[in-house]
């Protein structure tokens, strides 16, 4: 294309139609810096109120946990045969949530989808915190938390060695790996922005950023190596995130418990995880955008794209759910039949239909661009998805344990205040961590946006001005 047509910012009025394109917005580098930094300093009383409220919920949850540890698992609603309850269900849910981070930043980075740029950090942070919450549950679930280290493979005076055939061992290792991976990933991509923050803040923040940015100067060499590292990460973390939820699914699938013992569980769980994860990300973005006035960076184009992704994931989930359900229904094996009956017509029916509607309605909603681009509608849709997916986890874990081969030993389950408090604690804890994170670290990855802006120009095709990405990186 000829020099005349390549314009950083189109002078002519027709440029207005591109206003909504973040990567073409008329902004200088320092303006962008400020746009990212300012919201971090803005902490109204509302912010503190929120922090206090969340902290109280967490404290109450911690009390409940202490109560559980002191008195034993008998204070929870679980029993024989429902040995696993809310805790495991919520564990699966959080692990699921954690999957969006990598989905966004790794997969989309590889696919060079530029709309990802402003939301990658939010997604990665979500992954890290969701995993922290998930990681609590194995401890809580044990009751005697202090025994957990018996699972660690190190030579010890107890002459004990863990059993690597146990899915719980796989779980432990895989989730640990995923946690390390996603945190380091988050951190690496954060370094240049920390340097930026270092250069534009003072007092304790400046000290903190200085330490964390490790002396980043933005030399070509640094950029080049960082890029290298990030691309390796994005490739390496994808199989990890696939393996993590597959392994979680195998906690159930390796048993011969009807409706657990299923080969489709691994992909089914992964897809479900992506579905709930992306939805959760969408909620969070809508909320954070409101809370931090980030309309500048989180524009309808992003919600639109994210919404589409949720839509796709949702349809995939339906497909996998159906693929599993149809064979179980058709096979008509007695216990499975009983379990399905319990779900669709028995005591679990309310949960089941809640799950189904909460998972299916959003898919229909998200078909419409209006929904995808209107924040509050998107919030409704994606919140629904998370309700649905949480219910689904509960149904899978609890529902299927209530029935087994021996009718004499069937059982019922309902959570106690202890379980509910602890589950709420993890939600509050997640929100708390996330809120604080958003005020301490640049929530929007500045350098990625600037990099994106490098790529974008407007090109005239006939009478039309078209935003065009240059093939760099």
């Amino acid at each position, binding site marked *: 294309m000829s020099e005349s047509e390549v314009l950083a910012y189109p002078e002519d009025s027709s440029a207005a139609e591109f206003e909504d394109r973040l990567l073409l917005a008329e902004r200088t580098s320092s303006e962008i810096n400020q746009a990212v930094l300012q919201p971090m300093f803005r902490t109204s009383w509302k912010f503190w109120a929120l922090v206090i409220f969340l902290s109280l919920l967490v404290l109450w949850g911690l009390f409940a946990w202490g109560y559980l540890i002191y*008195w*034993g*698992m*008998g*204070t929870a609603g*679980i*029993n*024989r*045969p*429902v*040995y*696993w309850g809310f805790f495991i269900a919520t564990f699966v849910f959080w692990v699921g949530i954690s999957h969006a981070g990598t989905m966004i930043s790794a997969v989309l980075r590889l696919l060079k989808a530029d709309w990802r740029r402003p939301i990658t950090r939010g997604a990665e942070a979500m992954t890290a915190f969701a995993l922290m919450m998930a990681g609590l549950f194995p401890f809580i*679930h*044990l*009751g*005697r938390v202090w*025994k*957990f280290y*018996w*699972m660690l493979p190190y030579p010890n005076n107890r002459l*004990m*060695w*863990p*059993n690597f*055939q*146990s*899915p*719980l*061992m796989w779980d*432990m290792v895989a989730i640990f790996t995923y946690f390390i991976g996603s945190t380091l990933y988050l951190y690496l991509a954060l370094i240049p922005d920390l340097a930026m923050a270092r250069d534009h803040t003072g007092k304790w923040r400046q000290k903190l950023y200085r330490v964390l940015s490790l002396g980043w100067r933005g030399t070509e060499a640094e950029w080049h190596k960082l890029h290298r590292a990030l691309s390796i990460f994005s490739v390496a973390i994808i199989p990890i995130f696939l393996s993590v939820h597959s392994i979680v699914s195998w*906690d159930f699938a*390796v*048993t*011969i*418990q009807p409706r657990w013992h299923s080969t489709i569980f691994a992909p089914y769980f992964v897809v479900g995880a992506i579905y709930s994860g992306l939805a959760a990300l969408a909620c969070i973005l809508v909320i954070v955008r409101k809370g931090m006035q980030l309309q500048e960076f989180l524009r309808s184009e992003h919600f639109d794209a994210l919404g589409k992704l949720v839509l796709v994931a949702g349809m995939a989930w339906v497909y996998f759910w159906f693929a599993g359900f149809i064979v179980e229904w058709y096979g008509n094996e007695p216990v499975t039949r009983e379990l399905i009956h319990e779900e669709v017509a028995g005591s679990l029916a309310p949960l089941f239909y809640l799950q189904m509607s909460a998972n299916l309605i959003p898919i229909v909603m998200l078909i419409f661009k209006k929904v995808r681009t209107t924040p509050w509608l998107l919030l409704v849709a994606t919140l629904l998805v998370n309700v649905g997916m949480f219910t689904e986890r509960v149904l899978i874990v609890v529902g299927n*344990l209530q029935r*087994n*081969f*021996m009718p*004499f*030993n069937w*059982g*019922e389950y309902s959570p106690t205040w202890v379980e509910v408090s602890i589950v709420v604690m993890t939600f509050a804890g997640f929100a708390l961590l996330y809120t604080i994170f958003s005020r301490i670290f640049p929530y929007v990855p500045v350098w990625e946006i600037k990099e994106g802006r490098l790529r974008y120009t407007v090109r005239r095709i006939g009478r039309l001005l078209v935003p065009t990405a240059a093939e760099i990186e």
Partner: protein
Amino acid sequence: MAEIEPRWVLIVDLDRCTGCQACVVACQAENNVPTVGEHETIEGRWLHWIHIERYWEGEYPNIKARFMPVMCQQCTAAPCEPVCPVFATYHTPEGLNAQIYNRCIGTRFCGSACPYKTRTYNWLRPEFPEPLHEQLNPDVTVRSRGLIEKCTFCVQRIRRIEIEAHAQGREPVDGEIQPACVQTCPPDALVFGDLNDPSSRVSQLATSHRSFKLLGELGTDPGVIYLKGGETNV
């Protein structure tokens, strides 16, 4: 020790069983199984290692009830064993499904994996108000809360007899080793012995046309063999 390891099996003759609960209490007394009280039982947290299931068949007035004592089936291919992350349950050479209390960290994975649901978990601190603790059998660990327990075929009694026998320079004779439930069973519905000893009573009973295994279709190959009721033995 014998050249070939014994394979301990328990025969349950459903034609003899009268559902009298003697085995249930005997087991509790022998193995220090705590009583959990009314509330916990309602919650479905009772701890009996052996329980007698009662099945209804038909409608009044042509109705029948059948009893079936169910305890840990000591499976050869035990679904509960591989899933334990800390080897708290594993398979002994003599075919016992061992549960090692001081290894167990309480993931309850084995409980979810067991198709017979015969593994019980200590939900709360077991209580033996003074002086009831005097009844505790010194040969059996008193379990704390937070771990899984189950029928052991009274392994402590197996060992006791073996040791006594070997001290006298002989092998235990068939029928000498009796778990508490077998020892007390009034109608002799329970028989315990070594399946690898072709002359043992269990080996003969196991070949009966009445014999079947619980959930045999799952292929867990239990060490408990049931004899169907309502038929003659030939």
